Every structure is written in structure tokens, then in C-alpha cells.
């Protein structure tokens, strides 16, 4: 059972919707940078059925420096207002800074989504202090907001498993509730496309650790390189990878495209027997 600050999530595959309060993220290109636009987008993804919303204030790739103060300015007011509008929504904030984590948790966020492999380990203590959840991500041992350059692994999946389970145990040791810890292999983060494909193919090895697995695949470069397509052409590739990971037992999918992902996951869950078909008529009338 996944539970974040008292909010339990269903035992199905789950969708975490991306809402960026950034002017420069790779796919949305600032579409939800303004406060009103971000709040509207959150209303929309909640309406569409997203289980979690993940708010980001700093793009992942290298770019304009965003101070902790500016990052907090972008995300805290969103958290405050969303908490009012959707009191039962599981709310995540994408940050690698402990100081920002503290401010958003105080404002009512439920999860710290640290995509950079815990560069500030005190984030674990902050999450524990608030009884909040945490995402433990493999970022290829790189500093935040850097790109991989000729990164090599003896066995990328083994490296991911060792790294994220180590982080997860540290989080629990710091006092983060075990039922509120997710592991994320970090597709594209510190990895070339073949590394990300290997992780996708071997998702079951992550699932076998027992920690619930978050997959952030949406429209990423590994999809783009497989297909030679731009971000706005990567939906089908993303959904194919999504289905493969869900089939192997990944639980949460961080996505730009909520309805399409929900349909794919509903289909996979039914094939797995996790859920029943909505209709039961064919051959049964």
C-alpha cells in the first residue's frame, strides 16, 4: 500500500502528472510557467484522473541558474493553492534542494521527488520530519542538471538497483515511512539511450527489490533516439515503454499525457488481472 501523509493510493498502476512552473522545460516550453496556467493545468489533470501531481520549478537539463529562493517562489504558492483546491490530492514537488523541500512540505506537499540522487542528504531528514514521501532516483552519480558524457557501466541495472535501494534504506533509516518511498531508475539521467533501454527491459529486477518503482519516461530522449523523433512526436514510443514497464510491475508513471497513459495502464492492469474490464458483455450475453 502506497501512502503519503495519510493519503492512500489504489493498488493499480498510477499516474503522476507533470506540471512545470518553469519557462524552459523541454516539452511544455513554459506553457504552465504562470501561476494561473499552472493551477488550471493541475485542475485539468486532476479531472483527467491523475493520482499524483508533480510540480517542478527548475528544468532538469542545464540552463539558466535558478536560485533556491526563486525555485521556492515558483513552487510554494502553487502548493498552497492546490492544497486548498484539492485537499485529498497527493502532491509531489520535483526538487533536489532540502531547503525547498522544507518549504513545500510545510505548505502541504506530500512527496519530495528528488531526481538527482540525493545531492543534499538532509532532504531525507526533512521528509521524515514532515512524515512525507520521497523518490529515490538513480542519476548516474552526476551533479544536478548535468548531462551524461561517455558514461559507462559494467551493468547499468545492477548499478541502479544498488544505488536506489541504498537511498531508500537511508530514507527509511532517517525516519521516512517505508510505505512512502519510491525508487526511480532515472531514465536518461546519467545514461545513454541503450542504458535507458536496458533498464526498461529489466524493470522486473527493480520491482524484485520490493520497493515500489516510479518510471519517468515521458517523451524523453531515449524514446526520441530510438525513433528519431522530436519531443512532440514521442507519445507512442513513451506509451510503448510505459506498457512494458507496467507489465513488469512498475507502479507509478510520471507523465505529460494523462488520459493516454491512464488508458494504457488500465489495459495493462486488466491483462495482469489487477482490475476487471469495465464492461463484461462479449460472449456473456
Amino acid at each position, binding site marked *: 500500500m502506497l501512502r503519503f501523509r495519510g493519503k492512500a493510493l489504489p493498488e493499480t498502476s498510477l499516474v503522476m502528472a507533470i506540471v512545470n512552473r518553469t519557462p524552459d522545460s523541454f516539452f511544455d516550453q513554459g506553457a504552465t510557467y504562470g501561476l494561473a496556467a499552472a493551477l488550471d493545468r493541475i485542475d485539468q489533470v486532476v479531472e483527467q484522473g491523475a493520482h499524483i501531481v508533480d510540480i517542478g520549478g527548475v528544468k532538469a537539463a542545464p540552463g539558466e541558474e535558478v536560485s533556491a529562493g526563486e525555485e521556492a517562489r515558483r513552487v510554494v504558492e502553487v502548493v498552497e493553492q492546490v492544497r486548498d483546491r484539492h485537499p485529498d490530492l497527493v502532491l509531489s514537488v520535483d526538487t533536489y534542494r532540502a531547503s525547498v523541500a522544507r518549504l513545500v512540505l510545510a505548505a502541504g506537499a506530500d512527496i519530495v521527488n528528488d531526481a538527482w540522487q540525493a545531492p543534499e542528504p538532509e532532504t531525507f531528514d526533512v521528509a521524515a520530519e514532515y512524515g512525507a514521501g520521497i523518490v529515490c532516483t538513480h542519476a548516474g552519480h552526476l551533479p544536478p542538471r548535468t548531462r551524461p558524457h561517455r558514461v559507462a557501466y559494467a551493468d547499468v541495472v545492477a548499478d541502479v538497483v544498488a544505488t536506489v535501494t541504498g537511498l531508500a534504506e537511508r530514507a527509511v533509516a532517517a525516519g521516512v515511512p517505508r510505505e512512502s518511498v519510491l525508487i526511480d531508475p532515472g531514465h536518461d539521467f546519467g545514461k545513454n539511450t541503450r542504458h535507458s533501454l536496458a533498464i526498461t527491459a529489466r524493470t522486473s529486477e527493480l520491482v524484485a527489490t520490493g520497493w515500489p518503482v516510479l518510471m519517468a519516461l515521458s517523451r524523453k530522449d531515449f524514446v526520441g533516439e530510438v525513433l528519431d523523433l522530436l519531443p512532440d512526436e514521442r507519445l507512442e514510443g513513451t506509451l510503448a515503454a510505459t506498457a512494458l514497464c507496467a507489465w513488469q510491475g512498475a507502479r507509478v508513471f510520471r507523465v505529460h499525457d494523462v488520459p493516454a497513459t491512464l488508458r494504457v495502464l488500465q489495459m495493462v492492469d486488466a491483462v495482469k*488481472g489487477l482490475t476487471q*474490464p469495465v*464492461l*463484461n*458483455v462479449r*460472449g*456473456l*450475453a
Partner: protein
Amino acid sequence: MLVALAFVPSAPLLLPALGGGPDDLRSACQQAISVLDDVERLVVVGAAPRTGRCAGTVDATGWGAPGAPAADPLPLALAVGAGLLGDRPAELYGVADGTAPGLVEGDRRTGLLVVGDGTAKRTEKAPGHFDPRAAELDERVVKAVAACDLTALRELDAALADELWVGGRQAWAAAAAAAQAEVRPGGAAPGGWTGEVSYAAAPYGVGYLVATWLPADLVGV
């Protein structure tokens, strides 16, 4: 002594493990079954490979429901009837050919849950595809049930019914025969029976019928 009958379809989708069917059909079935609330003996009647009392488990795994298969799965119509009754105990009686010796006997107030449906060829998308004779046959059955026309139900054209995939002929004939026996001095329904059809439609191309029969002299008193 037969005192009440309820008629419901034998569609697998009515099994709880397969979703329970559309709301209006399911609630019509439950409403009809409620006329059997006060009987002393409750018997589910439905088509089966052999005529006679039957025992077994309501098992929907054969139709794809999750779980391990039972060793003794009931025939479809009896499974659907028992499934609709939930936890309520009932005897199960299978009918292979329309005759049902010993279905109703003795003085205990007996109710029958008659499980069967009409043709499966009502529309282009019906399980058996479209046959123009299907609607006509279903209509005849609905009228016969509404009017408690026991002869019509006992004498349905078996060859045509089979050709149109009618699932209820055997159970209806057995029920009509049992009801006929009460239309006599000292019977439960000396003045005959009164029928009420609460659902007659083919939402998936199969003729579904939900109805009740009660002794005529009790209705409207």
C-alpha cells in the same frame, strides 16, 4: 404446493464475478426474486444436461472470471440462478427436455426461480447474428409469460427455438407444467395465475425476460 414463480435470464454476465450485468436488468431480477421471499422451499430451475436435482458450485471461471476452477461447476442457468440468490439456500433442479418429475411435490409452499432467456439472434451484433424470426418468437414468449399461457410455453417449437438459440425453453416448459398442476380445486392457484413482465428487452441481442407469476386470486386483494 407451488405458490410463486420468478423468471430471470440465464446470461453469464449476471454472475457477480462477471460484473453482474447492467443495473436495470440486475435490479429487475432482484425485484422479481423478492416474490419468493416467503416461500418454504425455493427451487432454481434451469436448462442442464440431465433432468433432476443437481448440486455444485457457482463457478464463473469457465467464462473467464479470476480464480481457481471448482471441481463441480453448475450448469450455466443454475449457476446464474444461484448466483442471483447470493447466500440464500435453494434446491437446484436441472431440466434437459422440458419435463421435470418431482419438481414440485408435497405441501410445502414452494417457489420457483426459473432461469432462461429467449433468442440470441435479435440484432446484427447479437451472438447468433440477426434472424428476422427472433423478435417474433421472443414477443410470443413475452406475451405467453405475461398472460400465464401455460399451453403456449409448454408447446414452443423446439426446433425453431434451438435454431434461434433460445436458452429458456426447457425451464419455461417445466415451470408451466408445474404451474398447470396448481390450477385445480385445492391447488395454490385454482383460479389460475397472474403474470407481470417487468423487463423484456435485448440490449445485447439476446432476448431477456424478467417476470413473476402469482396465484390470480391473491393478486390485487
